[in-house]
């Protein structure tokens, strides 16, 4: 089941847990429920994908504490915090520490489903981006240091002639490196290459 996106429900109220499971089941979404934060942390697998729904008020580790714990552990599952009126401060704290969404009880069923789908979509998109970043990084890893050097100048918009001049190389040598770079990075042009590298987080853009 690690393969398919799942909604992970953490709520100490049995009726809420069961009803959420029924709701998610009705729209064909896989669901897994936990009666407390401890139970969830114990079962957690980094392979999980999907999203987490948490009640902010729970005995033991509260929803807020769980969310902070997950953030600290770099768990990237989107988290929807459910809260009653009067928990605004806590909600703000949750959002600041990275919860993706906040839904106030009582809510409309359709709204909850929409938010869940958004969270799942976000997770999917993140995973796609991550996968694509990983792919780009793998392609970058195949470049030689000289190729990386030339690539950074290329994507900075410098013409081959100037690069050859700056690096003390012949124009022809630069052109050969450029064709290797385009080939290794699996792009059709330098413009495409620039777009591909823009997906990387800034810290990975140092070549």
């Amino acid at each position: 089941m690690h393969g398919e996106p799942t909604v992970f429900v953490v709520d100490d109220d049995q009726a809420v847990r069961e009803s959420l499971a029924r709701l998610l089941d009705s729209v064909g979404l896989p669901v897994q429920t936990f009666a407390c934060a401890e139970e969830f942390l114990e079962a957690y697998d980094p392979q999980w994908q999907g999203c987490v729904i948490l009640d902010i008020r729970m005995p033991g580790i509260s929803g807020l504490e769980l969310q902070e714990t997950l953030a600290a552990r770099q768990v990237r599952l989107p988290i929807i915090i459910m809260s009653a009126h009067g928990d605004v401060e806590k909600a703000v704290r949750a959002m600041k520490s990275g919860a993706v969404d906040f839904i106030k009880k009582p809510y409309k069923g359709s709204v909850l489903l929409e938010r869940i789908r958004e969270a799942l979509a976000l997770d999917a998109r993140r995973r796609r981006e991550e996968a694509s970043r990983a792919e780009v990084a793998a392609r970058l890893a195949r470049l030689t240091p000289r190729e990386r050097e030339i690539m950074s100048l290329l994507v900075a918009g410098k013409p081959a002639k100037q690069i050859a001049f700056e690096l003390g190389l012949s124009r022809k040598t630069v052109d050969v490196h450029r064709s290797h770079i385009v080939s290794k990075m699996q792009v059709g042009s330098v413009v495409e290459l620039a777009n591909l590298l823009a997906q990387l987080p800034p810290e990975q853009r140092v070549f």
Partner: protein
Amino acid sequence: MFAAMYATRWARWSWAPLGVAVPAAVVLVTSAGDAGLSRLAAAGLVVLVGVATSAAVFCAAAAVSARRAACSQARQLAESQAWTSVVLETAVEGIITINEAGRVESFNRAAERIFGYRADEVIGRSVSMLMPPPENEHHDGYVAHYLQTGQSKGIGRARERQGRRKDGTVFALEVAVSEVRYGDRRLFVGICHDISKRKAAEEELAASRSFLQTVIDGIPDLVMVIDREYRVVLANRAVRETAGGQDPVSSFLRCYQASHHCEHPCEGQHVCPLETVVSSKATVTVTHTHYDGNGNERLMEIIAAPILDESGEVVQIIEACRDVTARVRAENQARQRQAELAHLARLGTMGEMAAGLAHELNQPLSAIVNYTQACLERLRAGAVDVAGLRADLEAAAAQAERAGDVIEQVRAFVRKADPQRSRSDLNELVREALGLLRSEIRQRNVNVQLELHENLPGVHVVPIQIVQVIVNLVQNALEAMQSVPQQRRRLHIATANGDGRQVVLTVRDGGEGPPDAALERVFDPFFTTKPEGMGMGLAICRSIVEAHGGRIALLPAEDGGALARFTLPAVRGTSDDAW
């Protein structure tokens, strides 16, 4: 005839306070002298006199007449005279005979004792010498009038007259006069009782009754003595004034007629004090509603005490009724004000519980939304899983009920209830309070230990106010444990039976314990150790508990936390009683 007369007299005396035989005299009035007397005896006229001797005399006289035929005339005469003499001289009542002229013909020994004259000082003289003026002047006239007309007020009946002794003192006397005809002669026999002692006792009784009446008339409360038949036998002026001047004693009213203008004894809400006192033989206090002259309701507090006879049975009760309308009204007002204050405090408490209660309500509402949305999604997808739909809808309905229960709890707590007391079970009130705090307790991760005593006596309380006190104490306990480690967050709530006269509730927390300085003042208004507290919570708790006749205290617990404890008076019987 004499026997009948005596019977009547003794019957009347039976109620006399002295209860001893009063010396009496019988007057035999004759115009025939000794011979006449003997003939009287021979004719079988027997005078019976009072006490034991009379029976013996009677038998003796009967024996005389039986033997008469066998004796000679002379002997017969002598014996008759002797017996008659014995009868007269041993009689305890004064016996005087007078003739048609009103002259005394015989005067027995008892008569001598009563009047202080020797027989020889009186015989042959007018009987009027034994009477005080003006009676003495008229007596001869009465006799003459009777002889002439046959009409008399005195003959044949016992009458109360006055006598005069030799020393001139006048005294009360009861005289029965009968006439005896003998041939053409008529004589009058008078039997005299000296009733001066009885009269004195009667007067003393009347005086003491009058004294008693004067005393109770001076009491502003209504005082009545009532017998077992509900008859008012004594009542004071306040009673008469309340009844518009009518005296229930002389009007022979029953208590319910006098107090309630009702034709049957009190029942139902008006507990009958007489019946209660008769069955309990103890002083009881009841409250009745009477109506004054303007038709206004007056609340009367009636204290009724038994009057017992020698065998310990209740023969009468004495009731003192006090108009407590003003006092009760003031008490009600105070209770009302206290209830209003308590209500305001509950609203404040409810505010503090709002977040927890919102959560408590949101859980079932969220579940309902989830279940029904699940049904909608299945229907939209064209599902025909009827069993699944039904299960979800049933679950949603159950959650709706759960939400309703939460609302009912909240509503009951904030309702501005009439401070009506009812018999309640403290354990039930504890559960009610914990129901309101369930979410709070769960949120704070507190472990609750309940130790509720079974068969706890009931308490007579305004239930919501006691719930309020428990909620306050538990809230304080929860707050006290806010910053202690999880394993110390233990809330211990216990109820106990305090020697059958009171019930006890304790709330113990695992917090840091109250600071010593706070212990003394923690129940004072506006005293608080919390930065955001008003300092009214425990002050109101104390006012509620004390208004119910209980006590409240906060103590350091043995294991370091705080122990809040309150008592309430137990009502009689076990909780199953319908008392």
